[in-house]
């Protein structure tokens, strides 16, 4: 016991924070002054901003900014409520209508947080016992949506249609063994138009063929490809010339090309209407602030009036890609 006391007296704890020299790099931040647009002023130096998803440069656009400021003067900042409880403003309905018309689908639904869009859309349709075929390189939001859905997840190798077909065939043989179970199981494929993790485009025509061959529904996540691919910026469906009705649900982030916040899903009314009560991020979160909805509407106006910006964007991308390859 005496030794124990002595040991306790002798013991010096290690410092909670180790001593750090004053010029440690983590203590000297790089300070950004001014708005982070395509030119960003870091430590007084003007740099080209390669660290944002502001593809069309609409974050800095004067028309978008003035539309947002006018909306701020009219509505204030927040909506103070979810869509179901006095949080639906006319700008929300207008934005939904404009998005549906732009994407040439029947209806669209707005979420107030881009991550929550696909993470709420997947569990609204896919429940326990359903099967979802997902690309390995799916983004984090899709992974969380799949986790929330409690469905059986089958991963296929990135953009490997042979692997997906193998999985679908296996599922088909299982279904033939147990047709009654197969009749109550829903099957989905979740792919991204332009993958956030690898930068590849998904092979949509083959996916549509597989969809009709094996009777699976397709959910397409177009966060990075909306406003980038396609002749008028309508995404990967326009890029490949596919009929938009072949895709069951398109979900996209408005935080990239559209320079707003939030996300939207679009598709047939029958499908989108279900999310108005079952989309957890729609029913149980406050709705999008009206100034951001107005900014998104203005950005859509610009996209519709100047369809040549997409070609400019793509040619610039190809130029940089070639230059970087050396």
């Amino acid at each position: 016991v005496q030794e124990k006391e002595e040991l306790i007296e002798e013991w010096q704890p290690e410092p909670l924070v180790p001593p750090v020299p004053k010029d440690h790099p983590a203590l000297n931040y790089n300070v950004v002054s001014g708005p982070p647009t395509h030119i960003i002023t870091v430590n007084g130096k003007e740099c080209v901003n390669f660290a944002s998803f502001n593809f069309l440069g609409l974050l800095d656009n004067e028309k978008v900014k003035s539309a947002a400021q006018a909306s701020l003067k009219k509505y204030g900042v927040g909506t103070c409520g979810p869509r179901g409880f006095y949080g639906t403003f006319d700008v929300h309905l207008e934005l939904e209508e404009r998005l549906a018309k732009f994407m040439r689908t029947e209806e669209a639904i707005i979420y107030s947080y881009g991550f929550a869009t696909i993470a709420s859309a997947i569990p609204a349709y896919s429940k326990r016992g359903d099967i979802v075929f997902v690309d390995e390189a799916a983004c984090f939001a899709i992974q969380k949506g799949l986790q929330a859905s409690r469905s059986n997840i089958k991963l296929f190798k990135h953009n490997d249609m042979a692997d997906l077909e193998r999985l679908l065939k296996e599922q088909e043989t299982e279904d033939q063994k147990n047709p009654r179970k197969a009749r109550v199981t829903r099957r989905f494929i979740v792919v991204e138009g332009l993958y956030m993790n690898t930068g590849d485009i998904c092979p949509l025509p083959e996916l549509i063929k597989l969809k009709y061959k094996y009777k699976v529904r397709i959910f397409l996540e177009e966060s990075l490809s909306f406003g980038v691919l396609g002749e008028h910026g309508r995404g990967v469906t326009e890029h490949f010339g596919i009929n938009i009705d072949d895709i069951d649900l398109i979900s996209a982030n408005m935080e990239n090309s559209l320079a707003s916040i939030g996300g939207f899903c679009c598709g047939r009314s029958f499908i989108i209407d279900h999310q108005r009560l079952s989309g957890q991020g729609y029913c149980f979160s406050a709705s999008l602030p009206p100034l951001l909805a107005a900014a998104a509407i203005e950005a859509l106006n610009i996209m519709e009036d100047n369809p040549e910006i997409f070609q400019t964007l793509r040619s610039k991308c190809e130029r940089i890609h070639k230059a970087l390859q050396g």
Partner: protein
Amino acid sequence: MNVGVAHSEVNPNTRVMNSRGMWLTYALGVGMLHIVLLSIPFFSVPVAWTLTNVIHNLGMYVFLHAVKGTPFETPDQGKARLLTHWEQLDYGVQCTSSRKFFTISPIILYFLASFYTKYDPTHFILNTTSLLTVLIPKLPQLHGVRIFGINKY
């Protein structure tokens, strides 16, 4: 939870039979059915009682032991999709008061029907088979059991 009240119950099917007024409504409903059957002039009293018993047991079998899942979406991503209402009651806890009530009520109806049919053999066979179809699925040993895979999915 009480029906028609704001509640945070994940699956209301589990608690609906414990709600205020459920048992009384159920008993009155069976009484109404019996009065309607008694009012039809073609049925004698024994026939009316046997019909009450059989129709009640048929309804109970369909709603409690045949139909699966919930008529509404639940926030638990369809945990009870393959369970009948009887299996969902009280989240699968056996021998709660609702379960005891719904086990005893067909037995009481059976006693009354046997009495009023004067223990006639044909009526006896009908009433007994009807009672068995509604009592056997309620046994705790048969919780989640699907015989011959019928009604499994």
